[in-house]
């Protein structure tokens, strides 16, 4: 691939199968980030299909995607800050595993800001990140990695969390070019921090665009291709979560999951039908049916354009 400046750019476009197969390894610490927005369900399902093992799954909100992955047996440990089906209730598969005696799942928990600070320390290559949280609570006792730190400027003591550097970060985005230069709008969560903190990065996108689209608005870029190892084109890959401007959250599914997940066998049946039983995300999308996705489509709300100016 020859760019207009004459340089040869990496083409990192891969199938989801190949990206997961090559970049996610048994025993890895994996962060599929995205706070309610752009949750990488397609990637999570491919990890289940490939029967990866002993993963440490990191995410502020494990959400349905990790509930499904825990149920499928790919996960050994969760690193998280809020364990629920947002706006609905519990994550039943995770609860079953963690309330079992002995527990079938190791839990390492922080607060939201603690997790964000952990990724940020990882991205910044700092050993720790300081924050004002945890004071007077039982959390540092429950998790001894939450530690006090003394300010060098006063008698003040605050708390620190350690850097989190996942082996792999998987980021769903609205668009990227073939080299992995990635743009997101709407909620940004902590995807940038998770990706910069990780050793390997997989970007999954709704649209693959020409480099010129990215370069027309460089302030919109959250990740440079430099840190991206694979780019997977997977429309509706964040379903049943949402992609700002592309489709809405499929709340009916979040409600359905509350019922499905109350029982281990019905979870297995669901996984058999919707994950193991389909070859890939495009088969899942076809099986869900056009009508479902059509109903999730918002009407347009354009950002408007700004002028960067050409300076020669």
């Amino acid at each position, binding site marked *: 691939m020859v760019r207009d400046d004459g340089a040869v750019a990496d083409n990192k476009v891969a199938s989801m199968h190949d990206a997961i197969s090559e970049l996610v390894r048994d025993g890895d610490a994996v962060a599929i980030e995205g*706070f*309610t*927005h752009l949750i990488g369900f397609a990637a999570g399902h491919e990890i289940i299909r490939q029967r990866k093992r002993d993963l440490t799954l990191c995410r*502020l*909100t494990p959400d349905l995607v990790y509930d499904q992955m825990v149920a499928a047996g790919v996960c050994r440990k969760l690193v*998280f*800050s*809020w*364990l*629920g089906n*947002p*706006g609905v209730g*519990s994550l039943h598969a*995770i*609860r079953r595993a*963690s*309330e079992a*005696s002995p*527990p079938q799942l190791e839990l390492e*928990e*922080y*607060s*939201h*800001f*603690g997790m*964000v*600070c952990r990724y*940020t320390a990882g991205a910044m290559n700092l050993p720790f990140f300081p*924050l*004002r*949280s*945890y*004071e*007077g*609570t*039982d*959390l540092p006792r*429950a998790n001894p990695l939450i530690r006090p730190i003394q300010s060098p400027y006063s008698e003040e003591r605050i708390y620190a969390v350690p850097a989190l550097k996942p082996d792999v970060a998987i980021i769903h985005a609205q668009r990227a070019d073939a080299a992995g230069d990635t743009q997101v*709008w*709407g*909620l*940004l*969560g*902590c995807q*940038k*921090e998770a990706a910069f903190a990780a050793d390997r990065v997989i970007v999954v996108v709704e649209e693959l665009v020409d480099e010129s689209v990215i370069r027309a608005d460089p302030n919109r870029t959250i990740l440079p291709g430099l840190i991206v190892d694979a780019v997977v084109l997977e429309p509706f890959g964040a379903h049943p979560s*949402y992609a*700002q401007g592309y489709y*809405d*959250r499929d*709340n009916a599914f*979040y409600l359905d999951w509350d019922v499905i997940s109350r029982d281990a066998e019905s979870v297995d049946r669901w996984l058999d039908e919707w994950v193991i039983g389909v070859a890939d995300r495009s088969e899942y999308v076809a099986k869900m049916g056009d009508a479902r996705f059509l109903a999730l489509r*918002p009407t347009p*709300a354009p950002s408007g354009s700004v002028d960067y100016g050409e300076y020669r």
Partner: protein
Amino acid sequence: MNDFSASEMMIVAAARELSGTRVCFVGVGLPNIAVNLAKRTVAPGLELVYEAGVFGARPARLPLSIGDPTIVTGATAVTSMLELFGYYLQGGLIDVGFLGAAQIDSRGDINTTVIGQYETPTTRLPGSGGACEIAQNAKSIFVIMRQSPRSFVERLDFKTSVGDRVRVVVTDLGIYHRDDDGELRLGSVHPGADVERVRASMGWEPRVAPSVAQTPDPSADELRLIREELDPQGVYTR
């Protein structure tokens, strides 16, 4: 007199307490409706902040979760969570944060982590989320929750968030404020409840204001806003 649900009473009571508030960290469910009701009644200048990274949200519909796309479109600013928690919350810009609780004690300390032992819980709850830092950094904390001897406890199973900044606790039975030495004090009981019933619905002997008021009924206007505009499908309020 209007007919109304316990949830509607809680929403209205919380909204009234927001009078004059400028910046509010919103949760989903009842707090979200309470905040939007306050904005349409007692606090027109209220700015809605969502931990997902939104300042100045103007949702066109009732958000389904803490990160609904409707809180983004038309908002004043969208930021990374590092900036939202770092610059806005820890930076001291949040006047009121809303928290829920599985357990609360007489000091306003909150448990949302586990029932039972931490290592071998009988019930694994969601955990902190942002609650722990909201409780420490928002200027004041509102708690909305139903009360019972199981939720209003003498001793928490786990302390997820400290109660130091709790200002108001609104339950299905009444309204508490934290008094000068940090104890929750019952100041008002909702229509249909009385102090005895409140006492029977909690695990400690509460402080009670010298003259307990009765919470005024939701007004026709408040109910109309909730039912027609804020939760027309009655997802949270019926």
